[in-house]
């Protein structure tokens, strides 16, 4: 037999990981196949996995095949990337914007990372941490020989991690609440970081893999005041320049610690925020790669041989939120009436164009914590009856607030508004820009949240605990101002539990309670795709929406 080749070993490792998930029922067959294909697994492995997932391997079963890794990667070339949004600044502790993340994720590393199979793996940590028996102490050993980009140009040490995390959880940080369960962060020596928790928290590992968890050198802050215009990390690409509203240029980091990576000489990122323009840019070849390939154009791109798509279900949820401090929405009968009146099968169409799934739960149907209940059809009669019971037989006036620039939310909001007319709810629709939306709907301060009904969404999370936290009494993400002691208790249990089956039970129970109480009415989850020219190879889609796989992407030209 001999020693397996590196490819073979990798294949086997991923195979084991996937099979494990399949057997635990954490992911479905379609997802298994997509991921296995993404990992470049052999047909035999695929067949085994597919059988384990409960079905034969059928041709054409995948909606989107990632770029195949079928040849030896060629180094060199600049990849022209079309990003959806201008980040406006680069400091992830000032604002937690996806747009910032999609620039700096190539420049910085974190201790941990999210693998394409949504498991957490080590990045700057040499291995997964040692966790004490009481679940309160996490000991990380750092990878050796990791160098910071110029002008810092020195090896990474444990005190950098401490400084980075302290800035992350400082009171003025926008993401401080991420580390609420952390007690102390210390560096006993240059290669060791010890994190102690106030109480056990199962979501701490994925949190250490999020965008706020970047490791930087304290010298950079000293020299520049903050990180808004610079980025000096340890990642596969070095920051060259950021011209607001124009472009970001990154160049290859020749000292990158992952052997042989990156393949590309650099990334030239431009901002193409209009959906139509992004489609045009990739179809005409003006750029080589676009994120957030517009869902309405997926079918067309799929038919185009010059374009390859990578993508699948994504961790996001689009929902109706009620401000429970605003009568009559504090009346559960009114919320139940609204839930009975809406038709998710119509609402999701302008939001996903068929590339998504209506849902009553908080997660994509194939996610391990998903609550896959049947989608109820609209029942206008029952809804009217509920309205009458609530004392609103003659209808009521309210308002719906949603995002003006995201048609995947504003168009569903229009449908909701129209559907509510049938039960006498006259809702004024306010489509507002980001700043207003963040203040009146997503503000951490309940006093600023003046909305009544909102059609909005959340995305990019990896652990169900992060989503469930939006329902914890007094939590900053609790935009509904919802409070239920039983749910609070379950959220704490979910954080403390480590067993997947146990956590699944807890999060499904939370979702069932939410379906009764209805602080949100979940509408649908949307798929997410990256589109690239077909000579762009090696890219792998990750369901958190990150583009970190550009480090292993290469150009076959």
């Amino acid at each position, binding site marked *: 037999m001999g020693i397996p080749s590196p490819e073979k070993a990798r294949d086997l490792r991923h195979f084991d990981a996937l099979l494990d998930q399949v057997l635990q029922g954490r992911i479905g067959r379609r997802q298994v196949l997509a991921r296995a294909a993404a990992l470049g697994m052999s047909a035999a492995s695929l067949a085994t996995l597919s059988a384990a997932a409960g079905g034969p391997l059928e041709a054409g079963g995948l909606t989107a095949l990632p770029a195949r890794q079928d040849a030896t990667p060629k180094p060199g070339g600049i990849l022209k990337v079309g990003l959806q949004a201008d980040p406006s600044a680069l400091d992830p502790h000032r604002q937690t914007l996806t747009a910032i993340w999609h620039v700096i994720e190539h420049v910085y590393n974190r201790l941990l990372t999210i693998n394409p199979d949504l498991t957490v793996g080590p990045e700057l940590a040499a291995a997964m941490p040692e966790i004490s028996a009481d679940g309160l102490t996490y000991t990380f050993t750092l990878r050796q020989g990791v160098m910071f980009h110029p002008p810092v140009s020195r090896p990474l040490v444990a005190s950098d991690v401490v400084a980075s995390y302290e800035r992350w959880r400082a009171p003025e940080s926008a993401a401080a609440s991420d580390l609420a369960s952390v007690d102390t962060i210390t560096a006993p020596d240059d290669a060791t970081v010890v994190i102690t928790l106030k109480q056990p928290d199962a979501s701490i590992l994925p949190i250490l893999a999020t965008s706020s968890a970047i490791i930087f050198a304290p010298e950079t802050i000293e020299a520049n005041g903050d990180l808004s215009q610079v980025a000096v990390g340890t990642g596969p690409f070095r920051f060259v320049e950021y011209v607001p509203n124009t472009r970001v240029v990154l160049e290859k980091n020749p000292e990158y610690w992952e052997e042989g990576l990156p393949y590309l000489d650099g990334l030239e990122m431009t901002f193409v925020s*209009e*959906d*139509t323009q992004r*489609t045009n840019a990739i179809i005409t070849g003006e750029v080589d790669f676009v994120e957030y390939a*517009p869902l*309405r*154009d997926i079918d*067309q791109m799929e038919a185009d041989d010059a374009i390859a798509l990578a993508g699948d279900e994504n961790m996001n949820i689009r929902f109706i939120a009620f401000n429970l401090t605003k009568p009559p929405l504090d009346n559960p009968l009114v919320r139940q009436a609204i839930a009975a009146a809406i038709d998710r099968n*119509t609402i999701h*169409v*302008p939001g996903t164009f068929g590339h998504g799934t209506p849902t009553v739960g908080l997660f994509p149907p194939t996610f391990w914590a998903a609550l896959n209940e049947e989608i109820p059809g609209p029942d206008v009669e029952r809804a009217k009856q509920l309205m009458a019971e609530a004392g609103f037989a003659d209808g009521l006036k309210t308002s719906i607030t949603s995002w*003006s620039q995201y*048609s995947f939310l*504003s*168009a569903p909001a*229009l*449908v909701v*508004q*129209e*559907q509510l007319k049938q039960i006498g709810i006259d809702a*004024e*629709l*306010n*489509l507002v820009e980001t700043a207003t939306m963040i203040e009146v709907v997503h503000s951490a301060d309940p006093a600023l949240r003046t909305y009544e009904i909102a059609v909005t969404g959340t995305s990019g999370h990896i652990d169900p605990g992060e989503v469930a936290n939006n329902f914890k009494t007094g939590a900053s993400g609790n935009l509904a101002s919802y409070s239920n002691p039983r749910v609070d208790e379950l959220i704490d249990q979910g954080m403390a539990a480590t067993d997947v089956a146990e956590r699944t039970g807890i999060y499904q129970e939370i979702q069932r309670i939410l379906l009764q109480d209805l602080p949100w009415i979940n509408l649908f989850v949307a798929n997410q795709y990256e589109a690239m020219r077909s000579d762009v190879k090696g890219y792998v889609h990750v369901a958190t929406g990150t583009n970190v796989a550009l480090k292993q992407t290469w150009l076959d030209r």
Partner: protein
Amino acid sequence: MGNRGEGVPASLPLAPPATSPAARVPAAPRLLDVASARRPTRPSIWRAILRQRLALTGACIVLFFVVLAAVGPFVAPNDPTSLVGVPLQGPNAEYWLGTDEIGRDVFSRLLHGARVSFQVGLVAVGIAGTVGTALGLVAGYRGGWVDNVLILLMDIIFAFPAVLLAIAIITFRGNNLLNAMIAIAVVFTPAFMRIVRGATLSVRQTQYIEAAVSIGTPLPRILARHVFPNITAPLIVQVSLVFAFAVLAEAALAYLGLGNKPPAPSWGSMVSGSYGSLRLAPWASVIPGAAIGLTVLGFNLLGDGLRDALDPRLRSAH
């Protein structure tokens, strides 16, 4: 910032061009024939328009638009906000112009949108025309510091890019259709004021005004009975041109999500709402876009034709 009276700043894409030749109409050379100099008789205007094919085309388009705005909402086959069918259907027997992204009937929305555009044009031009004319008459007739102050005020308004000023006014007053109309009126008031002031300046020099003053006619009466009737010609031209720009401004504001609130139909918001599906469903955005373009073209052609018809110098050149 020289030459304010004539030029249109480049930053004002929506500002109507100043109609300077027409401004001299009342100073027409046929002073002996007072009756015809004071007011060109209606039949002659119409005859002049009919002589110009382009102006006639413009008049037809405008007439069509007016009829659409008047009867459109009554003949629309569907409710403009109801989700009547499968989204993004192409034009078919049931939905003549197809359906939009959430399944509303584009044809019905187009018909209802015509009324919104017409309403905005009417109200905005009404306000801007009344205020602008009053200010222009006073400034032109009184001259001196009154004139200077009014001109300065108008220049301040003129100095702002039109859409930016409108957005500022709407942000300040609240986002609804009425405020959008007011904002558009404010933006176009200087356009009327300048034209009227220019015309008033030349009328003021005439002998019949001198005569009226000499017999002690009160100022309001002079302005209303002797000056105003003699400046209607350039005013009519300006009304037609500004109407076009008001329709365009409403569409631009609606495209930016200002003014008419969703789901109420407006041509501008129809374009912006369906623009994303340009590849999949061009009809949903191209048709309302074409309606805006056609209406603006119609009013412009009519305005140009009226200008030619009402300017005796140009008329004789034909």
